[in-house]
């Protein structure tokens, strides 16, 4: 584990803290005080993001083990920007809600700077997979 510098580990911890605090402030109040019945997609969305916030708290203690959380953040924001925001923006159809989500997703640009890519390549690309036999 010493191929990832202490500074990088703290940088990752800071990102997990940002994610956990941000989601904690916005999503958990909605989960705790949700209307009944709760419209399906809103409930699913809040549950998904609530789960990410829980894993982000675990990332404070185990930043490297929780790397998949940062991968997921990076990938879903990229998918959303490419598949949703870009067509809307090209068609000049961007509304306030989508613009706000786009701004939040664009903040995700910091994630690739925090992820320790050399460690990721060593452990998730070049390393042999877990046992097959």
């Amino acid at each position, binding site marked *: *584990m*010493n191929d990832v510098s202490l500074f990088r580990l703290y940088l990752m911890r800071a990102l997990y803290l940002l994610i956990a605090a941000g989601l904690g402030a916005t999503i958990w109040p909605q*989960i705790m005080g949700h209307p009944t019945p709760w419209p399906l*997609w809103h409930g*699913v*969305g*809040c*549950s*998904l*993001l*609530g*789960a*990410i916030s*829980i*894993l982000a708290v*675990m990332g404070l203690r185990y930043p490297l*083990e*929780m*790397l*998949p*959380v940062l*991968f*997921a*953040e*990076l*990938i*879903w*924001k990229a*998918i*959303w920007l490419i*598949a*949703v925001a870009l*067509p*809307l923006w090209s*068609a000049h*159809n961007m509304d306030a*809600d*989508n613009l706000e*989500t786009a701004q939040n997703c664009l903040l995700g640009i910091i994630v690739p700077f925090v992820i320790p890519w050399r460690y990721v390549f060593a*452990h*998730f690309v070049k*390393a042999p*997979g*877990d*046992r097959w*036999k």
Partner: protein
Amino acid sequence: MIATPHDAATSETQQANVVQEVSLARIYVLRATYLLLVIGLGGMIVPDVVSHPVVSRGVIPSLLGAVWVLAFVGLKYPLGMLPLLMFEFAWKSI
């Protein structure tokens, strides 16, 4: 902290022992779970992401699309991608 080659060797042995504690059957069960995610999400979410009406919000399909991508990684590294399954369990519980 790993200070000496002896410590490094001990740490590697400990890590190897921990990995050995997860049985082959359990590793295959994990792989099957990731495969289920790949197939299930692939059938339900990916078509929506690829060809959706331009006005929908799309945050949830994007999140689940990311899970779909990572489930492929989980086929090769079921233990490394355990947080993905923890995420599935957590959001469904909530």
